[in-house]
């Protein structure tokens, strides 16, 4: 059973690494490989040494034949012991490195030497546990094996606790729901893998290549064979291991898939942008309709002048309509131009308060009666193009207010603008308590020329524009929405630490 489990671990970890070649996925691969080494080593050792009942043997190896093949595998005890030592020693290292790479604690992020320092103890342990060195050290002095055992178990326990602290601390610091959700998946995965690791980490691999002289094992009852050989115990152990692994890799898969889909989304968006040609056709068609309407109006004005006493009121009405048509066309032209022009973005440090103030000023011109709830963290700067970012933020606020109007919330409606620093980002959040959107709408809202609003003034370029502006700021735009509850838009910009 554990053989299949370890094969699954290897395949899944390689797959994850191939999908996402980041520092984190490299540590995850290291984590899985070291766990596999430890488990495989222990399983081979058990197959070779015995001490399990027939039922447990079948449970572990499925058949006598498979067990015999493993049992008769040509491997020296030195090699086998060092395989276990490698897995046991490297796992806490990879776990701590991974936890540190996720951590936003300032001291850890700023001081990269901490990450390098973490390698020292595992490296020393691997040198000391190298079979020849280990045998030499413990040959005449059995107490040394005890000292080595206590040394290794101590730092390994500290590493595990430190990693757990970093992960829990990080989880508690995250306030954004989608970030929290993603991080909780990573935590479940790491906890599951660590659960399997913990089953054997207290047992010292020195016993494998120095079994009969290994006083530390005798004294501390920490031998690989010192497990109750009842079937129930093993079923419990294996079942937990399997459940943890399945759960862990499901989480890992989801985590990687999350990133993968993010990338895929960009590809989709590029394709959508290609379909802008279709949108342009729609645009041209609409403009043509508008111009045709104008043509009709001009014709009517001409007819009016042919009359002996032209109706001036009617004339004024036609002129006003023409002016409206003209303004609408201009606005649309500008909107489209703004989206497609290759305008350079000039990123300079801007105070987030200034950006918010300018945006609210413009918003109050459109909705003078609306009060936006504002929460801004003090002294936060972002690297931004003020005009474009204000425009993007304005678009989100307008969308939020329109959602409230559509939901007919009246006084109960509320738009909120919240800015704060979170992990690596400065987050600008726009909330509304409108009708919210369903999953289908959420998939489409960032597409150009998509609009759920049946209005002549909306051309469906707003969120596409916001997204493009945020991307040009090296940030990302996220949305969470629940039908009947409202929507939260998050602009995530890289934190500026100038």
């Amino acid at each position, binding site marked *: 059973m554990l053989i299949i489990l370890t094969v699954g671990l290897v395949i899944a970890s390689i797959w994850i690494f191939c999908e996402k070649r980041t520092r984190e996925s490299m540590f995850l691969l290291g984590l899985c490989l070291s766990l596999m080494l430890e488990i495989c080593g222990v399983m081979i050792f058990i197959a070779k040494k015995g001490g399990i009942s027939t039922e447990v043997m079948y449970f572990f190896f499925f058949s006598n034949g498979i067990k015999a093949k493993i049992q008769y595998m040509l*491997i020296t005890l030195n090699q086998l012991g060092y395989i276990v030592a490698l897995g046991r020693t490297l796992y806490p290292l990879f776990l701590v490195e991974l936890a540190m790479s996720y951590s936003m604690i300032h001291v850890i992020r700023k001081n990269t030497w901490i990450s390098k320092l973490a390698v020292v103890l595992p490296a020393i342990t691997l040198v000391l546990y190298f079979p020849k060195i280990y045998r030499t050290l413990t040959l005449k002095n059995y107490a040394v094996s005890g000292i080595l055992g206590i040394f290794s178990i101590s730092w390994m326990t500290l590493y595990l606790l430190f990693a757990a602290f970093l992960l829990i601390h990080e989880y508690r610091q995250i306030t954004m729901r989608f970030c929290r959700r993603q991080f909780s998946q990573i935590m479940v995965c790491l906890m599951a893998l660590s659960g399997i690791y913990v*089953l054997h980490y207290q047992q010292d691999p020195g016993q494998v290549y120095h079994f009969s002289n290994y006083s530390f094992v005798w004294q501390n009852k920490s031998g690989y064979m*010192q497990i109750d050989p009842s079937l129930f115990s093993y079923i419990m152990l294996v079942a937990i291991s399997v459940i943890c692994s399945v759960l862990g890799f499901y989480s890992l898969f989801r985590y990687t898939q999350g990133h993968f889909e993010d990338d895929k989304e960009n590809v989709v968006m590029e394709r959508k942008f290609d379909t802008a040609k279709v949108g342009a056709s729609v645009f041209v068609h609409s403009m043509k309709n508008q111009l045709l309407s104008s043509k009709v109006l001009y014709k009517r004005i001409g007819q009016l002048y042919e009359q002996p006493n032209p109706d001036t009121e009617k004339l004024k009405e036609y002129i006003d309509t023409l002016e409206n048509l003209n303004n609408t066309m201009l606005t649309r032209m500008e909107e489209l131009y703004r989206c497609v022009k290759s305008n350079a973005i000039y990123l300079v440090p801007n105070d987030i308060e200034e950006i918010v103030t300018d945006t609210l000023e413009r918003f109050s011109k459109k909705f003078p009666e609306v009060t936006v709830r504002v929460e801004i963290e003090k002294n936060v700067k972002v690297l931004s193009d003020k005009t474009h970012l204000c425009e993007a933020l304005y678009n989100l606020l307008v969308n939020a207010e329109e959602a409230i109007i559509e939901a007919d919330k009246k006084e109960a409606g509320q738009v909120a603008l919240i800015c704060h620093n979170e992990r690596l980002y400065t987050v600008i959040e726009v909330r509304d308590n409108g009708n919210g959107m369903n999953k289908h709408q959420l998939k489409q809202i960032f597409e150009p020329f998509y609009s759920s609003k049946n209005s002549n003034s909306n051309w469906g370029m707003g969120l596409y524009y916001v997204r493009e502006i945020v991307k040009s700021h090296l940030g990302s735009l996220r949305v969470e929405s629940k039908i009947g509850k409202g929507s939260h838009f998050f602009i995530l910009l890289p934190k500026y630490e100038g």
Partner: protein
Amino acid sequence: MRKKVLSLFMAAVMVVGMFAGCGAKKDEPAANNTPQTEVKTETEKQDAEPDVEPITLNVAYMPNYGSLWAIENAIAQGYLDEEKISVNLVEFQDGPTIIAAMESGSIDVGYIGQGAHKLCINGQATIFALSHISNGDALIGGPGITSVEDLAGKKVAYSSGSSSEDILVKSLDKAGMTMDDIEAVDMDASAIVTAMLSNGVDACATWSPNSLKILEELDGATKLTDNMTFADQTVSLASWIAMPKYAEENRDVLVRFTRALFKAMDYAATEHQEDTAKLVAAQTANDEATVYEQRGDAEWLTGKQVSAGAADGTVEGYYELQKQAFIANGAVEGNPSVSDYVLLDVMIEAGQY
């Protein structure tokens, strides 16, 4: 929220699992309970003490004739039933591993070969019954190796702490060599067979039935030494052991268990070897012919002989000789009295049937 609950659940289950995995449960029903045969006669039924508590013992064995010849007959002939003892047989590959498992309390009594006796001398286990005088260990040379002297600079596979190491050290010593003169490769008993048959090593020290298998299947293999080579200097013993604390607290159980063993030894020492081979073959999933060949691996003693030997000092003499040999080759430090780690009184009492 659901994930958080799931995470907490997994953590709780893991902790419970670890405890469940590590805790010994002696009172659990037998996982590998060997069926017991009915007690054969009314007279034998009356012989059993009426007030004896039934008990289940976890018994460690190695998959060979020498380890199983007595216990299998004790089960099959109903001698353990007479003592109201049922057993779970658990297979191990070597003696030191059995002692390690005993440390955790998961094994009550176990069988060891010559090599692991040094751990008993060091106080890590107590011997309560002599099984037989073994001749199952051998030092075997591969193609081109015909004497111990040929081993100089060669790769020799052995299992540290076991009879394998014992016979290797003794053989080298007799030839005026030490472990430093060879390239010793520490392996488990099974890997030694693979290493020899694939010519991965030049020679090996191992025990029966692995030694028989290598000699049979490897062309050019030569038995360089066996236990009889050292008959004039020492004796190679196989014994039944328990943890010192267990032996102290359960002396009556050990007497009952030993009595059943002794009766089985009486039954199979000189007769019924073919039937015994069948029982051992069934337990070890081997063919009967291979197991039957192992009947030449030892001098099989009857229970009565062992008990009488324990009373007249012969058995103590064997263990003293063995201990002195270990001391001579540096395998043990100190020189405890044999009576400190061998329960001669149990053997004497168990022989009174």
